[in-house]
């Protein structure tokens, strides 16, 4: 492992040694190394293979801006070796190779590249049509990235909210200046940076300030979030940030985007070989990790950055063979002057035209004179080298500004922001202020504006002039007759692919993107889109500005499904008796967010036994999930009159009545019972799933009508049971109650408040299951005590708990409907036999006008009871279709085998002409066979309702 001496390598701790595994071989590293820096320090420049042609690839940006250095670390696929911190014993694998990394037989694909132009898979493998079934798995196998380990243990991911007045994204020179300025104005600042340490280019650029952290000392209002990447900037300054296994959500009053620039790649033949790197990558590797990525270097330059990189290489002891300056004449910048003074060989108007490969890495560069835009003269020299540093321009990192809806203009061959949304500010090189001085001044300006935007007083310094002219070469793209000049390294897109896509008619930026796949790779074209635009512009004969911009969408990169999924919050509602259900062997089922016992025990006849217990003895069911609403006030009765279809004004205190609610279109949306506890107080029940909607509607209408009434949602405040069966009265009496529960004192539909087993209770003599029954509602924290008291009292009477499944059968035997199951989003009361619950002669109720219209039209369907003509045949299921003359005539809404009746019964919608008792219809069951059904009057069981009124 070779390293430059300090002060090179400022991010590594040379006193702490680690080792990790790459492709089965152990490599030493230092604390602070990335996988890429450690591999390069050990002379391993080949890190992976390319997506399509399996070409050798190594670190290109040393910053994770591209997909070249993607690796698999343990079970985690597609991590950038540029950013992946070395941990002791970390297992790292390269991607996209067959055989071994050094000798990848998948590279044979490159030999066939002429047969694989852009969009080849759209047109090559579809004839005959069946061919795709063969080719798809082959192509997927060839083109796969990392491997998803389906056996990997679940990792712990979670989320956290952050809070700040001003968020500053990027802690380079501009971001630091912005953060300090905003903090000076009194704002709380969150400074977010993706690097190991703050400072951005101050850490690695020649002439950078070495102690960026010191600038923040004494500023407690600035909070720092390092090694955190902002994935998205959504509306209203909502930032999604990923750090480690945590996803942060930050909503700031204002945001400064100081994300800097990427360096621009140079496009020429074999520009993808390991050893061809961005100049900034070379500087990062040397200054941050003390790694020299080569011994003999050529620098391709089109601005001062190239000369700075060359000088850095010289200082590090690298033999710089030449600077190939793409410009005909260079500016007299300080680094260019120094380079000249130090005797560097500088070639003006020259470009690398072809890179040469040996043993999977760069071995030399052929240089050619530039004759015009993209045109070169003959190669005049080949220089043997193992490093080519590319510094031909900048690409503002505008992704987050794009998320926020910023507008851009093409200036100095870059896309720079011109219009920003309110409360969003750009600062530094992303805003075209490239020099250190200009970036810092621009940061101060943006910080002050952001603080003002967040409500603080701040003096705004004048904006510095953008100093980006002459930095970015207008055409750093040089085609070669033999091709292999990569415009997009992620997807192996060559110049000819862009041209061919245009010629195939995909000449709009959005279409070309998808057809050529350029910009569709893991880096989303960060480094490559400007070149695509240039090529498109040339083909169309327009300027790059006229091409427009491709939409940059979140995430910026590095967001995993784990970040999105964990930690999930899925509330679960439990009733007061939940523990008792589990103790009794309750098989729990979800009912909305609630958990309810479907039935108890593992007996295959458990449900039937529960049904029989209720019919023949006594059963107990937890009905706490039923909605509960206290409607109170002088206008309570009048309020219910308007909301429900029946009438309540004259309902006596101590009595209960069915409630049916329709929406404004007359569709049935809920039902329950209204129990009048006081002249001003109704306790109204609603369906488990419908109560929230009913409560919202009640509140909305109360606000509209301004009646003297108050509505309280008390669903959770009361635990409730239904004690049902012929022996229910005896059990209740034994449990002890202060209420006279005799038939005469508390008849069917009677309501009383009193004590049950020492607990204050609301007792409703109602029954969904058609037996003598008491619905007993008690304060929730006494639910378990009530359950225990009734189960104990019921022991001598053979009491059995029963669940939702038994209740469904019991109510079906009585022909009681379940709203939402036996009704749908179009059902009005007259279709389901609820005429008796609708008082059309009331002055008003919700849905009344629509119901009048329904009455004037001929009905189209009726809900009827039915029984099967042959009980031994296949059993219909809910939603199976009723068929008439081969056409759909209706559907089954409920069906079950009735233990009490010994036959299959159900409810179904049928045409009105088939609704008379005795009518026959066919039901199409699973497999398409037909079973015969006969319309039967409901209730099926106890048609005179004598049992519930015992």
């Amino acid at each position, binding site marked *: 492992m070779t390293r430059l001496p300090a002060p090179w390598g400022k991010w590594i701790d040379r006193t702490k040694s680690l080792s990790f595994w790459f492709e089965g071989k152990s490599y030493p590293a230092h604390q602070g190394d990335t996988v890429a820096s450690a591999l390069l320090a050990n002379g391993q420049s080949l890190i992976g293979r390319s997506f399509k042609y399996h070409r050798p690839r190594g670190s290109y940006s040393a910053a994770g801006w591209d997909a070249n250095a993607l690796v698999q670390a343990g079970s985690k696929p597609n991590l950038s070796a540029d950013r992946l911190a070395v941990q002791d014993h970390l297992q790292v694998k390269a991607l996209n190779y067959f055989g071994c990394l050094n000798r990848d037989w998948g590279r044979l694909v490159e030999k066939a590249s002429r047969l694989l132009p852009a969009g080849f898979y759209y047109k090559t493998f579809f004839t005959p049509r069946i061919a795709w079934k063969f080719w798809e798995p082959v192509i997927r196998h060839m083109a796969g990235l990392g491997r998803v380990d389906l056996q990997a243990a679940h990792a712990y991911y*979670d*989320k*956290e*909210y*952050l*809070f700040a007045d001003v968020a500053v994204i990027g802690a380079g020179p501009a971001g630091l200046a912005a953060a300090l300025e905003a903090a000076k104005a009194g704002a709380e600042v969150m400074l977010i940076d993706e690097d190991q340490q703050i400072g951005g280019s101050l850490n690695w650029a020649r002439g950078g300030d070495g102690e960026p952290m010191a600038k923040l000392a004494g500023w407690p209002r600035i909070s720092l979030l390092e090694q955190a990447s902002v994935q998205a900037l959504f509306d209203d300054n909502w930032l999604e940030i990923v750090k480690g296994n945590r996803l942060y*959500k930050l*909503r700031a009053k204002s945001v400064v985007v100081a994300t800097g620039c990427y360096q621009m790649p140079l496009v020429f033949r074999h520009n993808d070989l390991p050893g061809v790197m961005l100049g900034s990558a070379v500087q990062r590797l040397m200054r941050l990790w003390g790694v020299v990525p080569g011994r003999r270097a050529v620098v391709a330059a089109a601005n001062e950055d190239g000369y700075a990189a060359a000088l850095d290489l010289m200082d590090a002891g690298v033999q710089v063979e030449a600077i190939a300056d793409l410009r005909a004449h260079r500016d007299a910048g300080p680094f260019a002057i120094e380079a000249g003074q130090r005797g560097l060989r500088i070639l003006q108007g020259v470009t690398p035209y072809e890179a040469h490969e040996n043993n999977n890495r760069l071995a030399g560069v052929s240089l050619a004179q530039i004759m015009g835009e993209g045109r070169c003269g003959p190669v005049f020299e080949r220089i043997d080298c193992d490093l080519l540093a590319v510094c031909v321009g900048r690409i503002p990192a505008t992704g987050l500004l794009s998320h926020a809806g910023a507008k851009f203009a093409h200036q100095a061959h870059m896309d720079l922001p011109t219009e920003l949304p309110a409360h969003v500010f750009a600062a530094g090189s992303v805003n075209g202020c490239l020099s250190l001085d200009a970036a810092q001044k621009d940061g101060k300006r943006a910080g002050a504006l952001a603080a003002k935007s967040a409500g603080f007083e701040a003096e705004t310094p004048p904006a510095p002039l953008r100093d980006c002219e002459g930095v970015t070469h207008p055409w750093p793209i040089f085609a070669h007759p033999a091709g292999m000049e990569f415009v997009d390294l992620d997807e192996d897109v060559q110049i000819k692919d862009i041209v061919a896509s245009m010629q195939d008619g995909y000449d709009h930026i959005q279409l070309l993107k998808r057809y050529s796949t350029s910009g569709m790779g893991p880096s989303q074209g960060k480094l490559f889109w400007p070149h695509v635009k240039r090529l498109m512009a040339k083909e169309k004969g327009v300027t790059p500005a006229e091409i427009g911009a491709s939409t940059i969408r979140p995430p910026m990169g590095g967001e995993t499904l784990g970040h999105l999924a964990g*930690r999930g*919050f*899925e*509330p*679960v*509602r*439990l*009733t*007061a008796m939940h*523990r008792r259900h589990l103790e009794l062997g309750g098989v729990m089922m979800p009912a909305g*967010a*609630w958990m309810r016992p479907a039935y108890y025990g593992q007996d295959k006849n458990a449900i039937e036994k529960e049904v029989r217990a209720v019919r023949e003895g006594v059963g107990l069911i937890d009905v*706490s999930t039923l909605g509960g609403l*206290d409607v*109170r*006030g002088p206008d309570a009765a009048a309020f219910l009159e308007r909301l429900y279809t029946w009438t309540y004004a004259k309902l006596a205190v101590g009595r209960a009545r069915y409630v049916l609610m329709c929406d404004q279109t007359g569709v049935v949306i809920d039902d329950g019972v209204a129990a009048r506890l*006081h*002249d*001003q*107080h109704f306790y109204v029940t609603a369906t488990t799933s419908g109560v929230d909607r009913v409560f919202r509607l009640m509140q909305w209408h109360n606000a509209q009508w301004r009646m*003297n009434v*108050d509505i*309280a949602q*008390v*669903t*959770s*405040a*009361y635990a409730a049971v239904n004690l049902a069966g012929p022996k229910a009265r005896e059990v209740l009496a034994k449990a002890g109650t202060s209420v006279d529960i005799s038939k005469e004192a508390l008849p069917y539909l009677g309501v009383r408040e009193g004590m049950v*087993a*020492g*607990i204050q209770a609301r007792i409703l003599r109602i029954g969904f299951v058609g037996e003598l029954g008491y619905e007993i509602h008690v*304060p*929730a*924290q*006494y*639910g*378990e*005590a*009530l359950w225990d*008291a009734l189960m104990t009292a019921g022991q001598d009477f053979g009491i059995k708990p029963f669940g939702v499944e038994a209740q469904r059968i019991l109510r079906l035997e009585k022909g009681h409907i379940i709203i939402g199951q036996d009704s749908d989003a179009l059902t009005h009361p007259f279709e389901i036999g609820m005429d008796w619950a609708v008082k059309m002669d009331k002055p008003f109720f919700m849905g009344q006008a629509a119901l009048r219209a329904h009455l004037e039209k001929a009905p189209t369907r009726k809900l009827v009871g039915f029984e099967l003509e042959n009980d031994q045949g296949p059993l219909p299921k809910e939603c199976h279709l009723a068929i008439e003359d081969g056409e759909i005539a209706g559907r089954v809404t409920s069906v079950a085998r009735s233990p009490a009746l010994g036959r299959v019964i159900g409810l179904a919608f049928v045409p009105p002409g088939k609704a008379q008792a005795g009518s026959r219809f066919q039901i199409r069951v699973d497999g398409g066979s037909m079973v015969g059904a006969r319309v039967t009057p409901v209730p099926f069981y106890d048609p005179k309702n004598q049992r519930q009124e015992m």
Partner: protein
Amino acid sequence: MQPRRQSFIAVPTDPCSGSLPALAMADFSLRPRLGFKGAGTADWLAAQGLSLPPEPNQSVKDDQGRLIARLSWGEFLLLGDFAALQSAWSFETAPLCFPLPRLHSHAWIVISGDAAPKMMAKICGVDLRAHKFAQGRIAQTSVARLNAIVIADRIRGRLGFHLLSDISTSQYLWDCLCDAMLEFDGAPVVLEALAKESHGQTDAQG
């Protein structure tokens, strides 16, 4: 036999009962509380001698250490023993003022520790840091995707919150809090550990 009230939260049988952990949480759900709501509520409560917070989303403590939280112009949450109010109330004596069964509708969890705001930031989108959410402030918001009432208070001399949320989801919420507080060395404690300086009320049947 007197029926027993039961919290919906299954607290570990041996919650940390020694010195208070850096972040502590206790189930106060069996402690008395109630609510009143309606257009006439403020007048009636004032007539009963209560000093009320002047505006919604504020709370005050009375001389018995009981907490009076104003949730809206016409809705109040009373944490502590207000049994006398319950006895005094009737439809006739308290026009347009209606009691709410908060003892049974809402679980009551108390959190204490200076890391409480940071922990809450993992499950709640409201900025609950002390300099933004002063003692006595109330947030009616979403906590771990549940509707919740969060009241800032000093608990055992440390930053803390009263957290009230639907009782049927209280075990779920408790589990979320246990998970969220792990990284802050947080742990559940027995009720008495946090009740010492809290409200001097005694348990009462709801």
